[in-house]
């Protein structure tokens, strides 16, 4: 049985159609990258997987059952920004997951339970390379370190699914390469199922096991919102070649010039 199954999923906001006829089956342990032009509904789809949005039509299922209607600890999330808590130190940020589970009322652990949570948090922080920054606040960390922290914070709950919403979009290219290595390592270790949105088609092409391209197949120039986007390519990574890359690039207009502008915009917005 597939972990996630979408049957003819559609999403409509008012009179603008964002997604239509999305069909997808994802098995446990896959690493899917979602690419597509801005406004093509990939973020909306991720929000459905997160539980903050519900499909307007069609069926979305988790383990064959109806999808949960709100976020929970089965699905971890890392956003492009604001994923970590500014009032907690690095160590406290990662301990939070265990503290919430262990203490219903106060959300804080004491004594031996606290020591144990601390050890677990330290171990996972070591695997993302943040051991030297345990007592720092997020604002003292660079963008890349903040994202490492956000990933560690999510992984401590051992979620079945990890959702990444352009997690490396605001980072420099060099740091981005480090982050790719890190996320691949963690994915192999934990066998978590990953969905990752990216604007970088190259990123989508070698990271993960499967590339999903969101795009509109029908256009009405008078009413740009009359038709929604669908999954136009669903390719196992590894079976990709230059020709398909060019084809997708053409279709989604994700050419390098766009990407460069996007990166500059992100850099200007970040930090």
């Amino acid at each position, binding site marked *: 049985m597939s972990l996630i199954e979408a049957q003819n999923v559609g999403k409509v906001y008012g009179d603008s159609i964002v997604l239509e006829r999305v069909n997808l089956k994802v098995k446990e342990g896959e690493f899917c990258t979602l690419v597509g032009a801005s406004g093509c509904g990939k973020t909306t789809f991720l929000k459905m997987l997160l539980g903050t949005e519900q499909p307007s039509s069609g069926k979305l299922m988790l383990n064959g059952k109806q999808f949960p209607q709100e*976020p929970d*600890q089965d699905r971890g999330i890392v956003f492009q*920004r604001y994923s970590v*808590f*500014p*009032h907690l130190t690095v160590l406290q940020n990662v301990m939070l997951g265990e503290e*919430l589970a262990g203490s219903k009322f106060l959300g804080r652990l004491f004594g031996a339970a606290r020591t144990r949570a601390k050890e677990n948090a330290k171990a996972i922080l070591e695997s993302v390379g943040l051991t030297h920054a345990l007592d720092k*606040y997020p*604002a*003292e960390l660079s963008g890349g370190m903040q994202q490492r922290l956000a990933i560690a914070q999510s992984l401590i709950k051992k979620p079945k699914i990890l959702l990444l919403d352009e997690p490396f979009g605001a980072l420099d290219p060099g740091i981005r390469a480090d982050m790719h290595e890190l996320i691949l390592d963690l994915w192999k270790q934990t066998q978590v199922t990953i969905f990752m949105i990216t604007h970088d088609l190259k990123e989508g092409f070698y990271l993960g096991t499967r590339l999903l391209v969101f795009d509109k197949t029908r256009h009405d120039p008078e009413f740009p919102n009359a038709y929604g986007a669908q999954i136009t390519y669903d390719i196992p990574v590894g079976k990709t070649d230059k020709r398909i890359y060019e084809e997708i690039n053409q279709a989604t207009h994700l050419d390098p010039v766009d990407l460069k502008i996007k990166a500059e915009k992100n850099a200007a917005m970040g930090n």
Partner: protein
Amino acid sequence: MKRLINQQPGKVLAAWLGVLPFVIVVVIYLVASDMRLAENPDDKLLPSLQSIGDSVARLALEPSKRTGELVLWADTISSLVRLGLGIGISALIGLMFGIATGAIPYVRANLSPFITAISMIPPMAILPILFIVFGLGELSKVVLIVIGITPFLIRDMQLRVRELPSEQIIKAQSLGASTWQVVIRVILPQILPRLINAVRLSLGPAWLFLIAAEAIASTDGLGYRIFLVRRYLAMDVILPYVVWITFLAFLMDVLLRVASAKLFPWYGRTEGAKA
């Protein structure tokens, strides 16, 4: 020559520039006071520093013949207790209702219009009602301060809660947090420094309501004293009292700012990081 907007005064010069307006005001006062007293030694409007000093010494150091208290300190304590109670209660109500209306859509839908309407009532207009309902004792003075500043605090806290990035609230849920846990571990700790800021902003109105209530019905307090001696044109008492009240207000503001920086070391930095 650089443009004026690009010229920075040095540290020492900046300090002197800051002190200068105070010095000018004092000098103008002394000159004007001297001129008036030279013409009429019994003039009460601008008393000399000497007579102000005598009055302060009398009020602060000699027990009152009527009550046996040191008047300045007794007044200060009465006023500060009222102010402290009023601000403390307001802050607590502001925090609770602000978080509830900010975080929970059902509570917001239920209470937000009501709180907005309440906040439009001019507090001084209902002071007579407070005196009728709560009597002329301490309670009505504290209630006036509470009614005066609580609506602002609630609305400000509600806005601050809603300003927290939704990503954080979602992230907390993905870590398994319940509504209560989101409030106590994510919202409350981040709202506290913002509450201190809001309280600092409401110190001015709080003093205003305190002095108004004391002026109208009281038997002690800083506001009471000022309005009592007004009958005798006792500027030698009124002026130092005004300076003293201003100093207390300034001191409270500084203490709150320092406390915020000490208790929430992460706060200033996040503001910078967000910009």
